[in-house]
């Protein structure tokens, strides 16, 4: 049920994100959601893509440093305070979040957040026990293309 995230290293300069996106476009890879973590000199572009394996291969071919990480996509009620409640639950379970970002579309009429936990297996186990709705990769990217 892990979701595959592709992260790419980009310098903080005009045109560098576009360079990554061009490789994806040229290979007909669709972006489902993305976020950029920035520092003064560089950023990390984190993306959920419909063809992660192909994306990894093509980015590497084009000398773009990238990596594959497993993250969790979790349904959160689209109501005030729902995200807070979820985070409190993670905190009680002592699950450390490295970073998180929001999904652009709703699933089952709920908001979806992507979480990168320090220990994904531990988080998954605890969250399943707690009855959290974790979204499978296949529901996001469809059948393996």
């Amino acid at each position, binding site marked *: 049920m892990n979701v595959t*995230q592709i*992260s790419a*290293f*980009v*310098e903080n300069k005009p045109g*560098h994100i576009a360079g990554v996106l061009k490789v994806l476009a040229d290979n007909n890879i669709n972006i489902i959601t993305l976020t950029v*973590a920035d*520092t003064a*000199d*560089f950023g*990390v572009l*984190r993306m959920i893509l419909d063809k992660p394996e192909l994306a990894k291969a093509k980015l*590497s071919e084009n*000398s*773009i*440093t*990238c*990596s594959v*990480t497993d993250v969790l996509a979790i349904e959160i009620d689209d109501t005030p305070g729902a995200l807070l409640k979820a985070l409190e639950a993670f905190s009680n379970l002592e699950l450390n979040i*490295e*970073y998180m970002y929001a999904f652009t579309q709703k699933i089952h009429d709920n908001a979806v957040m992507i979480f*990168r936990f320090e220990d994904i297996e531990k988080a998954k186990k605890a969250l399943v026990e707690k009855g959290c709705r974790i979204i499978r990769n296949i529901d996001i990217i469809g059948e393996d293309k």
Partner: protein
Amino acid sequence: MFNSEIETMSESKMKELQLERLKWSIRHAYDNVPHYRKTFDDAGFNPDQFKTLDDMRRVPFLTKQDMRDAYPYGLFAVPLSKVVRVHASSGTTGNATVVGYTKNDVEVFSEVVARSLACYGVTENDIVQNAYGYGLFTGGLGAHYGAEKIGAITVPISGGNTPRQIMIMKDFGSTVLCSTPSYALNIADYIESNMPDFDMSSLKLKIAVMGAEPWTEEMRQQIEKRLNVDAFDIYGLSEVIGPGVSAECTEKSGLHVFEDHFYVEIIDPDTGEILPEGSEGEIVYTSLTKEAFPTIRYRSKDITRLYHDSCRCGRTLVKMDKVTGRTDDMLIIRGVNVFPSQIESVLMQEEGTEPHYQIIVDRKGTMDEIEVMVEVNEKVFSDEIKVLDSLAKSLAHRVKSTLGITAKIKLVEPKSIPRSEGKAVRVIDNRKK
């Protein structure tokens, strides 16, 4: 051994040979080159007074600037009709320096390169792929003539066009690669990132002859591991002859100087005083046999030391340490002397970092600032910013603790540091305006 009589000559016999040749070379320079006549006369030194090796201290130095001022033929000691070849340095920091060779000089040049190749174990059975640039640079033709002299098949591919280098290496069965160390790593990079199915064992390469730029032990280890070769240092300067002034042997510990052709001294770079054997200082060269372009007490600005250590290879020639810095390359950052090679060593101690780096020096107000650009490859990359931050911090910490200077480590994309096909550009100093 290519010339065992010379290479195993006793120290005292070598000194006799050197003295006899020095007398000729100093006289030859004085009689035929106005520059030497003037500087010798100004210093009150007459070649007739040169009787023992001790008299060397009275002979004036020759500097790089003297050579630039003599552009192009001012220091030639024979009529141009006797010169059969010229080489020149790039002249990026002033006039190029032009050096000339008579037929006999070319012969000596070939001999010392052949001796160097023999030091590494190259024989007539080898196939030498010469990826040094052919042209005014001494490396290309120097290695070429040496390889031919030894009787090996010489493949004059010159530098550049990496895919073709790899194809030729495989198809021709090259056993020896001559190139700059940075270009050898370029070839390894290319294979690793663009040819994932390439079978390294399809290459017959066993020896890498690396020269023309300072390089470190860490870089040697990388070249040896990634290209599956033994990598050896060949050292030289165009001002003295080109590559083949000295060479490592299979012991890989120090370089034997071909001192029957080049007389070497170590001096204190500040006072010009000759230092005793074993001391570190600037190495000074005097050619003993060169006809067209004698160099008398040329200040190389290379920092090294000289010693005799009864080398296990059997050669008795004096040895010099691998040169890892030239006083020219030395950066003075807030009063601290730093060689680019020291930064290279630090970077390569960190697991996974690339040997491609560039140092940018700038002055903000009155403060020198140094920025080291390091490429982020997949071995060190992480989706977490904190991991990348700690890589940069850890490198900066290593620089600080090893060299005592604060450097900013800037992580950059792969291949964003320009790759060299000849000498790598390691330093961009924006302070010099």
